[in-house]
């Protein structure tokens, strides 16, 4: 018998599965394969064990969504649960969550990996992971809401932070570390840099990903924070992220300190806090409780400013464009190189938040499928203005030095020794500079 799919002679042995299929057959995770027409082509023994169905009966059947009324047999419920979402049929890897057909409190999290050729989708590989839900059955969520959550949380994958910028590589390593521990963590970074995004990424990377994450604005009444921390109604909130920590009222800060003093941190929501402020300054000014600062800063995560990762600008724009298009109700596929070059020149003081708003405004103005220079907001459209006069460095430095020396001499009441100490330079150097700058001290100081 001639060999079929492989060059290895043993794979051509009659009755023996091809090597690839043997790998799936031996897998402990339920795996299945459907055709471009959604017909079930293959399922492994782990799939049979999970579904309680024999593959021989299900082979060739169509995996499509059935209403509960239309599904006559248990196998119909199984095939309905396997039906690939529209995104998979468009050739994009995706994930969905379906209620397990056996009506237990379990969910099937199904990852779909389609492949295609010039003729379209050829097949979709599916892998099932069973997620067990805890809690009272009457409080379970409808399947559509669970799927909405899965789609939304797709935004918070670690892959969305991939970057060559050293500051982001460091951030990714810090997020991985933070995800492996239930300890509280402080997320610091300039305004709009993505601190909440990082917090949600950490949550979805960690052991608590099946529970919920609450992002709490520091402006809310302290009673809201108290409720989230202490009420048993919120047992399923796995992570609490406090935004703008330094603006939290003192009594709310005290609540957090109390929460962190608990001997069993794993039983409570895990605490993450974000801030753009210099917390050491806030503590010195009396606006931040020292024990709260100390408890949070054991694990500190730094989110860089956008201008520390400008090489990511094209990738960030690609990531944000679908949301910006949805906000503007426009269909835009990309950005021209001229517009991109102009965006590279901007300082981005409000970082990613500003970039998103610029993209929304540009999408709103866009007339075509690509953002161009004319679509950018007015303040970004013009080229940076060249200076109308030169910027002489040496003269400027000399002026600054003169003012500092004059100030130091005034403060030292003409005593050059004391003035040199104030300026943190040797006295001889001060004397030399006084002569070179044409400055004269009124009184000679003691040596």
């Amino acid at each position, binding site marked *: 018998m001639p060999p079929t799919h492989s060059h290895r002679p043993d794979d051509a042995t009659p009755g023996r599965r091809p090597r690839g299929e043997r790998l799936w057959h031996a897998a402990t995770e339920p795996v299945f394969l459907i055709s471009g027409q959604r017909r079930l082509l293959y399922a492994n023994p782990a799939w049979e064990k999970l579904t309680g169905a024999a593959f021989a009966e299900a082979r060739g059947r169509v995996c499509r969504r059935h209403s509960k009324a239309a599904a006559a047999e248990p196998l119909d419920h199984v095939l309905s649960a396997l039906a690939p979402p529209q995104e998979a049929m468009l050739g994009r890897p995706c994930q969905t969550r379906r209620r397990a057909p056996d009506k237990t409190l379990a969910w099937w999290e199904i990852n779909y990996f389609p492949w295609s050729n010039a003729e379209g989708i050829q097949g979709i590989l599916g892998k099932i992971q069973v997620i067990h839900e805890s809690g009272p059955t009457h409080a379970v969520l409808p399947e559509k809401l669970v799927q909405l959550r899965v789609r*939304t949380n797709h935004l918070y994958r670690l892959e969305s932070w991939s970057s060559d910028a050293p500051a982001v590589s460091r951030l990714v390593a810090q997020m991985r570390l933070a995800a492996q521990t239930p300890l509280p963590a402080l997320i610091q970074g300039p305004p709009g840099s993505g601190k909440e995004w990082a917090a949600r990424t950490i949550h979805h990377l960690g052991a608590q990903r099946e529970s919920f994450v609450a992002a709490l*604005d520091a402006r809310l009444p302290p*009673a809201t924070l108290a409720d989230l921390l202490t009420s048993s109604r*919120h047992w399923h909130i796995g992570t609490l992220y406090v935004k703008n920590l330094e603006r939290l009222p003192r009594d709310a800060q005290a609540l957090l300190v109390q929460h962190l003093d608990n001997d069993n941190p794993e039983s409570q929501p895990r605490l993450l806090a974000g801030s753009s402020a210099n917390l050491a300054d806030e503590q010195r000014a009396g606006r931040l409780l020292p024990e709260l600062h100390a408890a949070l800063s054991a694990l500190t995560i730094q989110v860089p400013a956008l201008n520390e990762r400008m090489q990511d600008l094209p990738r960030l724009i690609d990531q944000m464009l679908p949301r910006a298009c949805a906000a503007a109700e426009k269909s835009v596929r990309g950005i021209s190189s001229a517009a991109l070059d102009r965006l590279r020149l901007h300082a981005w003081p409000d970082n990613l938040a500003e970039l998103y708003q610029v993209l929304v405004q540009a999408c709103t103005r866009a007339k075509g499928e690509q953002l161009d220079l004319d679509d950018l907001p007015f303040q970004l459209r013009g080229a940076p203005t060249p200076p109308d006069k030169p910027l002489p460095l040496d003269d400027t430095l000399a002026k600054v030095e003169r003012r500092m020396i004059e100030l130091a001499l005034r403060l030292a009441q003409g005593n050059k020794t004391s003035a040199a100490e104030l300026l943190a330079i040797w006295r001889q150097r001060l004397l030399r500079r006084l002569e070179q700058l044409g400055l004269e001290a009124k009184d000679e100081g003691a040596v």
Partner: protein
Amino acid sequence: MRHTQLITYGVDEAAAERLTALVRDRAVGLRVTHNAQACLNLMRQGAVGVLLLRIGKNLESEFTLLAQVAQQFPQIAPVVWGGADHPRLAGLAWDLGAQAVLLTPGDHDRLYDVILRLLPD
């Protein structure tokens, strides 16, 4: 043009009247909507402020709207308000980006305070 607004979705007339009194002295506009598209269009016109989203009639469309607003319009703070205490729904609302979730009678007492605190200065 960005102008501060309190936008409501799914809120009845009586509640809307009380909210009118609340925002009248603060130069904040009140816009009452019962349609997701109308709600989103207000945000597309540049509104900043708070969205008070009443849930309970059609959870799928209400939570879809919540997710859309949280992802697409970060200048709007969504506040989820409902009449039934359902901890998992509350958790999901927080998870999808709500800035406050008020589902119990005790929560309702805080509604006005929460709205005022979340409105931009």
